[in-house]
């Protein structure tokens, strides 16, 4: 169920990335999921040595539903001065990923830094990166249900209340005797009651 807060983009631009000329220093490339690896390999060979970031965007009503955005930067692989670096080339590679069976190829073997970035997108968007060596949740607990950065993840309201809670958040999973509801709390209560009783006695005497 769509979150009550998420404004619909139907009627607005379905793809905000395509409606305006580029606003920043990056070259923008849009590729199909099948071409992604070949394109990134080529860019890496051209000198885009650093994979700055991988981000995800959920456009919900658009097809393909998701965009995964690769930010590349061309830095030398050896010591270099400010003048030698100058204004390095920036490239932004956007790839559309369908909402059904959202899968992309992992690039961890090209850039080790992609490891956590891909895990985070898997965790928060539910996009699977095939070939990733250790694809598991990174920010959320392993038993979390759903992918919170999807626009249809219920944020609050009845849909949120109906969403199953993770086991650690359930009261029934708290072992008996755990403060403050268990024996310790009861013992404290007795102690407090005793102290108050003595105080009253002392005051009367």
């Amino acid at each position, binding site marked *: 169920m769509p979150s009550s*807060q998420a404004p619909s983009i139907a009627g607005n631009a379905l793809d905000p*990335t395509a409606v305006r000329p580029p606003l920043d220093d990056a070259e923008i490339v849009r590729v199909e999921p099948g071409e992604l690896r070949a394109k990134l390999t080529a860019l890496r060979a051209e000198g885009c040595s*650093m994979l700055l970031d991988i981000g995800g965007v959920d456009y919900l009503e658009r097809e393909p539903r998701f965009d995964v955005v690769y930010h590349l930067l061309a830095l*030398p692989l*050896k*010591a*270099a001065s400010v003048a030698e670096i100058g204004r390095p080339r920036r490239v932004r590679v956007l790839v559309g990923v369908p909402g059904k069976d959202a899968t992309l190829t992992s690039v961890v073997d090209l850039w*080790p830094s992609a490891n956590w970035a891909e895990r985070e997108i898997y965790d928060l968007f539910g996009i699977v990166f095939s070939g990733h060596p250790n694809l598991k949740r990174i*920010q959320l607990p392993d038993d979390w249900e759903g992918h919170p950065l999807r626009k249809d993840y219920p944020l609050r309201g009845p849909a949120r209340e109906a969403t199953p809670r993770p086991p650690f958040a359930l009261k029934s999973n708290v072992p008996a005797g755990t403060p403050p509801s268990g024996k310790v709390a009861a013992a404290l209560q007795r102690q407090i009651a005793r102290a108050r009783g003595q105080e009253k006695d002392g005051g009367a005497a």
Partner: protein
Amino acid sequence: MSTGTEAPSATPAPLSAEVVARSGNTMIVSMGPQHPSTHGVLQVVIEVSGEIIERAEMEIGYLHTGIEKSAENLFWTQAQTVVERMDYLSPLGNALCYVLGAEKLLGITERIPERAQAIRVLFAELTRIASHCVWLGTGGIDLGAISTFFYAFDIREDILDLQEVAGGARMHPNYFRIGGLNGDLPAGFLAKLDALIAKFPQRMRELRALLQNNPILRDRMIGVGVVSAEDAVRWNVTGPSLRASGIAYDVRRAFPYSGYEKYEFNVATRTEGDAYARFLVRLEEMDEAMRIIAQVRKELERPGPVLIDDPKLVAPPKETIALSMEALIHHFKIVSEGIRVPPGDVYQAIESPRGELGYYLVSNGDNRPWRVRTRPPSLYNLQALELIASGSLIADLVVMIGSLDPVFGEVDR
């Protein structure tokens, strides 16, 4: 003890925090997330053979608060308050990056008054010093140098005072606005700033005297956690940690923003790539930041507006709303509905104290951002710990974490 001959298998099975098991000569130990030297809530699961770390795997996410999701559900103007909470040691750095990105989407970058830009640079550099002070103080404590902490926090305290005077709060002043600043510098600010500028060189001399040639500190840091230039680039390390490996990439120089091209400063660089090099780079950066502050200070003599004059984007001053109907309406609209940002996407980067901080902002034309993706420098710098930790001593792990200077508000968001 490991003989170092057995090569690790190509794809090691993931370590599990729950399993604390002996297998052969190695033992799996969990360090953190409550360990005081992990600078927050980092859990490092290490496989050790004796004192040598064979493999380290990090567990993050203990501080995940869904800031990116929260930002999508707030107005453009409100989201700035939550992004400030990511890197809580340089809140105004985050605010600056977000605000610059939103201004690019609005197409008002050229219209930001010069005085506002100068004051933004002033606070960006002040928070850089304050953030490095925390790194220096806590990093010193990791190595047993307790007194450094008090010297460093003395400087930081002065800077937090300045933030409080200007923005009203010590930690999260929320002083920047899309379109300029919340208000001009109040009376008495410049006198406080002058006092800090005057006292700073002496304080830095003391810090250097305490630490730089301290034999214990040198022994613990030199040759520890070496990152080569190539590894730094492939592992996406930025900021002081990248510059300590010899690559002088600084966003302030490569892609200047907010008028940085006007100021003279050196990009501190070393080539050793070890923890001591990162330490020296950060110390020099503090001096260079103060150099920029002194240049900005001269500019602040000239008065001028600090907010663009556009009632559709910035709320009119409070004094005018009792006198003018239009001002009242504009104020009401901006407070109750926020501002509408034209559709588009933009990537904005700044040089935060930890490296390249980037925001990938997507707008669909509404009054709420469609997506606020952060490129947190700490996340990627910290990831490189996996690379440098294997083969080192357990005691050195503490030094390495400190030298990468992660902030967990930003790693986990």
